[in-house]
């Protein structure tokens, strides 16, 4: 029989007894048939609703195990059997205790099962996000096929309002896509040919076609689901104590209950009935379920909440480690900075950028795209270039409108004459760790373009907040010290470790670990050893699969503010675990002595019914506390 059915049966059968218990003191009303009716009602409860407790308790007893069912079964059976004996001996009976305990315990289990499925909802919702089918080009036409039949390399069309079925790269069409379900980012992302699209995200306005790259278990969503699933079932080290307690808990409680009976009956000379009530209360109140649920439910909700915001916490161990951090180390390029150089300053008139961009358009130098982008942004008109030539390590030259033009290093002799003012300006830029491109026309330098890999929009804000949370911030980079210090100053980083080779990053972390608990934030393949070495590795979203494997926390979005959010979430989840454990422990630590009648002298006693109710609500309160974590702001 289903547990809800068992609960309703117990409730309906207990209600007449409850009515008598409430009405009798005032009106003297009793159930027709008296104790016989009560015996029949309770026997039905024991058979129908309590039966499974008893058979489960017996099955586990045979395996040398004891659990909550053991306590409930023993407690209620004791009350029930003693009452039958007492009935024939004309002593006071307490059948209703057995019936009420069963009702309350079942009520607690029904509610708890509901809350628990609420808590684990996040993962089910995530898995359901996936599209069911895709418009795939087959034999020259787009046809709808089930998602399972899509293979990498397929050309897939996505219409407005449709879900992107798998991960891939746009080949034609322009649209904006709502990626919030995967990244937690609420702003839709613009997509044009060459851009990546992620499965399960929703196309908003345009139609586009893309080439499938990752399907099935390789898609980002599938990976997120896998990570969250693993995290939700993981263990936190804080749990170790409760694991040990749970093993010895129930048998210990059985022993305490017997001792309670012996003390009340033999030492204090109370009646067997009174002594049994105390013993039964002890059995019924003491369930370690709340202890067992404290950590897993909070982990489940915490990691689920993170997943919704694009923050994946791999397991309980990471979560616990994230709470003891005092230093956070950042990779520079791609983590603090955007990872691609941008034009920060242009000295001279519009002409300067136009000449530079016209020349760079033909160049393959990494800095060229920064100049071109700046030119596009300020809408300068590009000129025709003839006689284009790249001078290795110096720059590029060509003829524009019949005049010799140059763009490149200030050290190049091809640059031409330069004014004192510009020379001074170059020195200033270089002090700021910017790369300077001088622009020359007809043998004279007409202006400068300064280029730098600039910090991302949120970098300084995130670093300020991490510092406010008491963390020391460190930048670890392979770049030279001047560039590193310039960026560090802009974003407010405390300490810089520069000139470190990719292979030396893990060693640098190890050195810091001698005194500190260290988190490392990085994104590239070369960051993987450092991510693994750190106490907490935080892999940024644009990162590679290797980095994602190595990180304990994975940020889907490439936003440094998510580091702040991830640490905040870890703290909140861990604090909730501690709170849950505290309540679960305190409840047993206080509940058992009260139930045993230790405080009977001051009138503080627990009837078995109340003990049953308390038992039901201890685990329920822990689960509710965890579910509430899901409403936390991060």
């Amino acid at each position, binding site marked *: 029989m289903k547990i809800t059915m068992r609960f309703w049966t117990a409730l309906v059968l207990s209600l007449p007894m409850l009515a008598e218990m409430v009405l009798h003191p005032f009106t003297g009303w009793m159930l027709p048939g008296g104790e016989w009716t009560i015996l029949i009602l309770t026997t039905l409860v024991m058979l129908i609703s309590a039966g499974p407790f008893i058979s489960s308790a017996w099955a586990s007893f045979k395996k040398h195990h004891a659990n909550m069912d053991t306590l409930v079964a023993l407690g209620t059976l004791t009350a029930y059997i003693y009452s039958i004996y007492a009935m024939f001996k004309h002593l006071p009976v307490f059948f209703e205790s057995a019936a009420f305990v069963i009702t309350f315990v079942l009520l607690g289990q029904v509610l708890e099962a509901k809350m628990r499925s609420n808590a684990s909802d996040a993962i089910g919702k995530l898995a359901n996000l996936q599209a069911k089918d895709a418009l795939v080009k087959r034999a020259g036409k787009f046809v709808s096929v089930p998602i399972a039949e899509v293979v990498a390399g397929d050309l897939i069309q996505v219409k407005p309002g449709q879900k992107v079925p798998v991960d891939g790269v746009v080949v034609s069409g322009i649209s904006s896509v709502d990626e919030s379900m995967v990244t937690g980012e609420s702003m839709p992302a613009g997509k044009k040919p060459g851009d990546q699209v992620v499965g399960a995200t929703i196309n908003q306005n345009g139609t586009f076609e893309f080439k499938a790259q990752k399907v099935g278990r390789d898609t980002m969503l599938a990976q997120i689901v896998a990570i969250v699933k693993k995290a*939700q079932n*993981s263990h936190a080290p804080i749990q170790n104590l409760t694991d040990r307690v749970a093993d010895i808990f129930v048998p210990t409680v059985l022993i305490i209950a017997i*001792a309670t009976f012996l003390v009340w009956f033999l030492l204090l000379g109370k009646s067997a009935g009174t002594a049994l009530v105390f013993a039964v209360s002890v059995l019924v109140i003491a369930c370690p379920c709340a202890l067992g649920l404290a950590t897993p439910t909070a982990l489940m909700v915490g990691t689920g909440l993170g997943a919704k915001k694009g923050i994946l916490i791999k397991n309980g161990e990471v979560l616990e480690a994230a709470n003891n951090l005092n230093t956070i180390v950042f990779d520079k390029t791609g983590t603090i900075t955007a990872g691609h150089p941008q034009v920060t300053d242009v000295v001279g008139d519009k002409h300067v950028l136009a000449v530079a961009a016209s020349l760079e358009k033909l160049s393959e130098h990494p800095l060229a795209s920064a100049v071109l982008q700046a030119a596009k942004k300020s809408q300068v008109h590009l000129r025709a270039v003839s006689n284009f030539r790249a001078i290795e390590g110096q720059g590029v030259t060509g003829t524009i409108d019949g005049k010799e033009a140059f763009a490149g290093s200030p050290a190049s002799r091809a640059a031409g004459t330069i004014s004192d003012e510009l020379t001074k300006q170059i020195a200033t830029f270089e002090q700021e760790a910017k790369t300077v491109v001088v622009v020359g026309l007809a043998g004279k330098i007409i202006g400068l373009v300064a280029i730098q890999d600039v910090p991302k929009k949120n970098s300084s804000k995130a670093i300020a907040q991490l510092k406010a949370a008491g963390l020391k911030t460190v930048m670890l980079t392979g770049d030279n010290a001047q560039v590193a210090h310039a960026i560090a100053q802009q974003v407010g980083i405390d300490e810089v470790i520069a000139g470190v080779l990719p292979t030396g990053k893990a060693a640098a972390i190890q050195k810091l670990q001698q005194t500190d608990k260290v988190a490392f934030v990085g994104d590239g393949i070369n960051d993987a050893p450092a991510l693994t070495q750190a106490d907490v590795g935080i892999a940024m979203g644009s990162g590679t699969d290797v980095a994602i494997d190595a990180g304990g926390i994975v940020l889907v979005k490439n936003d440094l503010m998510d580091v702040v959010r991830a640490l905040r979430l870890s703290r909140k989840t861990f604090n909730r675990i501690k709170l849950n454990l505290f309540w679960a422990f305190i409840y047993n630590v206080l509940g058992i002595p009260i139930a045993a009648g230790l405080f009977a002298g001051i009138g503080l006693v627990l009837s078995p019914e109340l003990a049953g109710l308390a038992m039901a609500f201890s685990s329920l309160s822990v689960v509710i506390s965890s579910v509430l974590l899901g409403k936390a702001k991060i």
Partner: protein
Amino acid sequence: MTKIIIFLIGIVLIGFIAWWFFGQHQVQAEQAVVNDDQQNVDIEVKGGYSPERVVLKKGVPATLKFKRTDASTCLDHVIFSDLGIDQKLPQGQVKEVKIDTTKPGVYDWACSMNMFHGQVIVK
């Protein structure tokens, strides 16, 4: 006299509980049989798991078939925390859990309240 007898019964009961639950008892273990490059083990879920310890051969795909015959909600999920598996066990149905046997090791499983435990050994 009655009091002495009751006292003695109590003491014996306490002793029995301590011996029965805390003493060293052999757990039921089962070595999986390999058939057609596949190993299956049936696990009955009733007041715990039988067998409680399963030995699997490394490298051979393995499936544990859990069947819960116990009405207790205590056992309604089986969780392999190292493998990221949380399998619901509806009463009376057989639920299959695939175990990755590529790496040798010991993987624990437990019910959702962590009261009942079992172990997979891959070697």
